[in-house]
């Protein structure tokens, strides 16, 4: 697990004078399941295509197994790709699609036959050998694409939103299947998706990207529990993001109250972003809470309710299994575990406010709060909700 299989060193990629990737430094360990996660246009597919060799970096180096492959064409790289739209060869049947790479490599027909059958077994497509790919369902085509890419026994399998065109049920099944295949074969997977749930479920390592930059690298738990900035906090799950001030190690102040927290290492009185996950918040009677507010909207989500609570004009999203009627006055309790403190970044103030959830839009208006003095004005026009 510890060996670096792929290294991206200071990689920049420019399309028509615009930077798609700015300065990517990333290493991928042998045998890991790494996911590049981000919204469309963040550079994740560009990163994948650079590793595959379909495009070449404008600056920087790509190493595979310690060898510089920055200018090596795709057909000389030990990586294979599963394409979003499968890209199966329509003039070939299932068997010949899977055998394609093996025939190019000039393996003996016996060996090809053995490998194709092995692959059909792995992706559970026995009996489909002679079917035309155009007569298969989306899920089956996806399996053929995976088998075709794996047949060459690549060091790394690159997957570009491979489940993007499948329906929800099939996606879930294929997620498990892919994870099983990856563990069974012990091959490194680099997986591109914009679906945060998919990324958290399947990966050993998640790389969150936005605007051509890597925002955070970590295990799914790290990314979820310890987001580095407001973008990551908002993109991975739901988050209430508040302006706060770090009064001391383990002590943060927001909404005019001081809270104990688990974070340290910030400057004294440094302005920070405070993240509170909607599912961590405990609802208590109004007089028993740290803060109290009014429920302004309730949405039933199946497992839980999404309720929007107005705290002095700032609206929070709270997820609870107990129904709270609209207009109810409730209190909330926060334990140190529930509070996560982040440094201010360019993303501060853009995410994590649920005001647009309600019909009436409230400006942040909190005259009592001590922190108001250090508060940066929220750039309303840049707010990126919905």
């Amino acid at each position, binding site marked *: 697990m510890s060996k670096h299989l792929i290294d991206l060193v200071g990689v920049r990629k420019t399309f028509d004078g615009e930077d798609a990737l700015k300065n990517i430094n990333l290493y991928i360990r042998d045998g890991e399941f790494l996911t590049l996660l981000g919204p469309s246009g963040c550079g994740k597919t560009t990163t994948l295509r650079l590793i*595959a*060799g*379909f495009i070449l970096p404008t600056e920087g180096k790509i190493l595979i197994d310690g060898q510089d492959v920055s200018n090596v*064409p*795709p*057909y000389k790289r030990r*990586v*294979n*790709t599963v*394409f*979003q*739209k499968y*890209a*199966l*060869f*329509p*003039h070939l049947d299932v068997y010949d699609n899977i055998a*394609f*790479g093996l025939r*190019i*490599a000039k393996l003996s027909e016996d060996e090809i036959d053995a490998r194709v059958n092995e692959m059909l077994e792995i992706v559970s497509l026995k009996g489909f050998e002679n079917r035309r790919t*155009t*007569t*298969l*369902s*989306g*899920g089956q*085509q996806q399996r053929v694409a995976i088998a*075709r*890419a794996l047949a*060459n026994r690549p060091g790394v399998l690159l997957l570009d939103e491979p489940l*993007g*065109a*499948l*329906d*929800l049920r099939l996606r879930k099944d294929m997620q498990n299947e892919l994870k099983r295949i990856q563990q069974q074969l012990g091959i490194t997977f680099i997986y591109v998706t914009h679906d945060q749930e998919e990324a958290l479920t399947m990966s050993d390592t998640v790389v969150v990207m936005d605007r051509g930059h890597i925002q955070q690298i970590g295990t799914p738990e790290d990314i979820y529990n310890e987001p580095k900035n407001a973008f990551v906090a908002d993109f991975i799950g739901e988050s209430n993001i508040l302006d706060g001030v770090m009064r001391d190690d383990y002590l943060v102040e927001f909404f005019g109250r001081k809270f104990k927290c688990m974070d340290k290492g910030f400057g004294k009185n440094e302005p920070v972003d405070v993240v509170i996950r909607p599912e961590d918040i405990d609802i208590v009677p109004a007089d028993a809470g740290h803060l109290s507010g009014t429920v302004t909207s309730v949405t039933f989500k199946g497992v839980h309710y999404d309720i929007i609570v107005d705290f002095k004009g700032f609206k929070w999203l709270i997820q609870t299994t107990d129904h709270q009627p609209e207009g109810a006055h409730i209190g909330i309790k926060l334990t140190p575990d529930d509070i996560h403190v982040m440094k201010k970044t360019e993303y501060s103030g853009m995410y994590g406010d649920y005001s647009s959830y309600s019909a009436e839009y409230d400006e942040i208006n909190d005259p009592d709060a001590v922190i108001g003095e250090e508060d940066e004005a929220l750039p309303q026009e840049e707010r990126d909700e919905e």
Partner: protein
Amino acid sequence: MRRFNRIFTIIVLIFLYVPMIVLAVASFNSGNDIAVLKGFTLSRYSELFRDGVLLPLLGNSLIVAVLSSLSATLLGTMAALGIHAMGKQLRQLTLAVTNIPLTNPEIVTGVSLALLFAFIGQTLKINSILGFFTLLIAHVTFNLPYVILSVLPKLTQMDRDLRDAALDLGCTPIQAFFKVILYEIMPGVISGALMSFTMSLDDFVISYFVYGPNFITLPVEIYNYTKKPLHPKIYALFTLLFITILMVMVLMNLLQARDEKRTNQARRIFSAGRRRVTT
């Protein structure tokens, strides 16, 4: 309104096909006068097949048509690949240039080719440059745009990832072309070849300016015939030519229909998956 449409369609079809029907009927008429139907005969056809002049000329026409359509298909497909790989602006510019010969009056193309050949003949000191090769070059020239125009859309329609997938699985760019891309654009290549074949087979205007006395094609010779009263065996020849071209066109349409069905099918499967996700 609908009835009017139908009547109108029939009138158009009559205008288009009546001349051919008259010709076909005349080719089976045993009398020499077109206006009088005397009786049914196949003798015009047997005369035609025994004709020592017309048949070799038909052979000439076929040779030029086959060779020119094959060369044009080869060159045109290569050109289409190159044009496809260009940036948007350069591609549009190149296409505009390659399409001009399509709309250029044939007689202008014919005369300018004749001048070009005369010029080359003079500089190379060749006395009679006009002949088989000038004819072939001329036919390839006017066939090229048709091939480019039928191959290029196939390249644009093709899933871009197919080429990447081939490279990814170990193909060099040349292998990727022969093992994957060629199959994808084949319907366009074939229809380009068939189109060139028919254009070349019945070309008269351009051929008239670049043929030499040693190598004459059928349409050119027929033009010479029309100065004298037409022998009815010519009717038989025309009928056969018409049927040949008709068959090529039908074949082309069938191929296109099959191709469309195939791509629609593939698209449907993909979009069905997509739709279910979005709803």
